[in-house]
């Protein structure tokens, strides 16, 4: 169960990383500005599909996270998801900086391609937007969690009744 939850969290973090990169591709203009409207009403089916998929997947991730960390407060689940997602989203930059640091210590020239600061700021903005969508997704996640909880309670109620019946027969 621990591994399943860790893998699911990591998977959703990776998906979120992918969504951040996808958002940069479809929601940013060549000048580096953000256009959140055009992709949704574009005649290009791919852009429209990707725009809607980004929103639905983000909300879905929030929903699943809420259920996954149902035994904690909502913010714990959000933090458990967003920290690894943030780490993955900035991994290229962080790795590049780490190699640069090693290059300083080791006295060699780093040949790694590091995303520019402007690019990272743009990614950060989209990460923030997707985080908001994830938090929004946690609201329907509460309803989903209650359904799961009710189902689990019903299952345990049935088991308890069966055990009680067996116990009565034994006596």
């Amino acid at each position, binding site marked *: 169960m621990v591994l399943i939850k860790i893998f699911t969290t990591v998977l959703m973090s990776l998906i979120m990383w992918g969504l951040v990169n996808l958002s940069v591709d479809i929601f940013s203009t060549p000048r580096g500005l953000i256009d959140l409207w055009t992709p949704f009403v574009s005649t290009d089916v791919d852009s429209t599909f990707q725009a809607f998929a980004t929103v639905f997947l983000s909300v879905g991730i929030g929903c699943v996270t809420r259920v996954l960390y149902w*035994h904690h407060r909502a913010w714990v689940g959000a933090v458990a998801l967003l920290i690894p997602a943030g780490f993955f989203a900035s991994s290229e930059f962080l790795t590049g900086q780490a*190699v640069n640091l090693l290059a300083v210590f080791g006295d*060699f020239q780093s040949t790694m391609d590091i995303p520019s600061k402007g690019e990272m700021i743009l990614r950060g903005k989209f990460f923030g937007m997707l985080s908001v969508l994830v938090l929004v997704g946690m609201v329907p996640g509460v309803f989903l969690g209650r359904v799961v909880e009710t189902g689990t309670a019903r299952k345990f109620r049935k088991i308890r009744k069966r055990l009680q019946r067996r116990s009565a027969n034994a006596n």
Partner: protein
Amino acid sequence: MQTDDEQSVNGQSTNVPMRDDQIRADRACIGCGFNLFGQRVTKEPHYGLAITRCPECGEVAAIQTYPTMSHWVNRVRVILTAVWVVVLVGVFFANTMAMVGMCAGAIEIGSDELGDEIGIAHQVWVDTQTQRALDLQNQTQNESAEGDAVEDSVAEDGAGVATPDRAAVLNDTNNSTSVTSVSDGITTTVVTRADGTTSTTINGAAAVTYTGSYSYTSITPAWIENEYEHYIESLDGVWGHIDRQFMILFLPTSVIAFASGIFWSVVLLGARRRNVVWIPLVISIVVLGFVISMNSLYTPNQWAGEVANTLVAPRVAPLILGVQLVFAIIGIFLGRKIARFVVLLTLPPRSRVSLSILWTRDGLELPKPVMK
């Protein structure tokens, strides 16, 4: 009145006699085999379980027993234990091989420039030997033309015996000329073909010319024997010729070592953490031995890059393994804390109980659930 069956602690009876309480069937004591038929049944005070006590040896026999489990339960348990041990050995092997890979990669990167330098130095030396052989050939031919007594070195059929500072010339049937010279104990044979191309053999080993990369130049054993030490002296320190980009591998090494430290710390709960440190230490020693032996000198026809590896390996491998050791130790000492955090994060309170050993092993109590 206190009977023999009842224990007394501080003069007080602890076992309470039960009503209608005698064993009415043959039942052997598990301690001495005495038949407990007719023995009195009492209730032990702690759990209230029905027990009887053997009058011969005093062994306590529980009245409530469960059917003996199948032998297969024990067999399956043994099999699972064996599989678990095999898995741990496999992980140890994989961990070692991962570190060997990291070390080998670092050595390859580190020796990149030095391999080229050695290849170039070797090529210069081969060219010098070739030129010297050709010069001796010219000198020998000039001497024979002047009527000197060189007949003893050049036979009638054109073949001869090369002596120090004297070349022997052989004209074969394929319109190629072979020159063999001996100088400083090195026998150099240069074959010049009709199209003008030459190939050189030094002490019987072909000196392959540039093939696109000096690192992949085959180094002749004669160079290793005669020039290698002079070359190392001329380097003025190997470290300055190592490509420092190998340090990039510190990053994956540290991540893998940290993860393996966490793994060993959590898996080897039976051992103290300072004893678990032996695992990465042993891995480091094994890897060091493996890598150094893998990059040994004096095997025939080594490439220049391989010769460079022999110089770089003893300097780079300890660095990589040092980083590995440091991060593995950090992983070992933080591993159980991380595991406890992950369990608290992912499991609801009821499910955490099955992993409570992560707390109890370190003398901690399983955290009580916090109500939302």
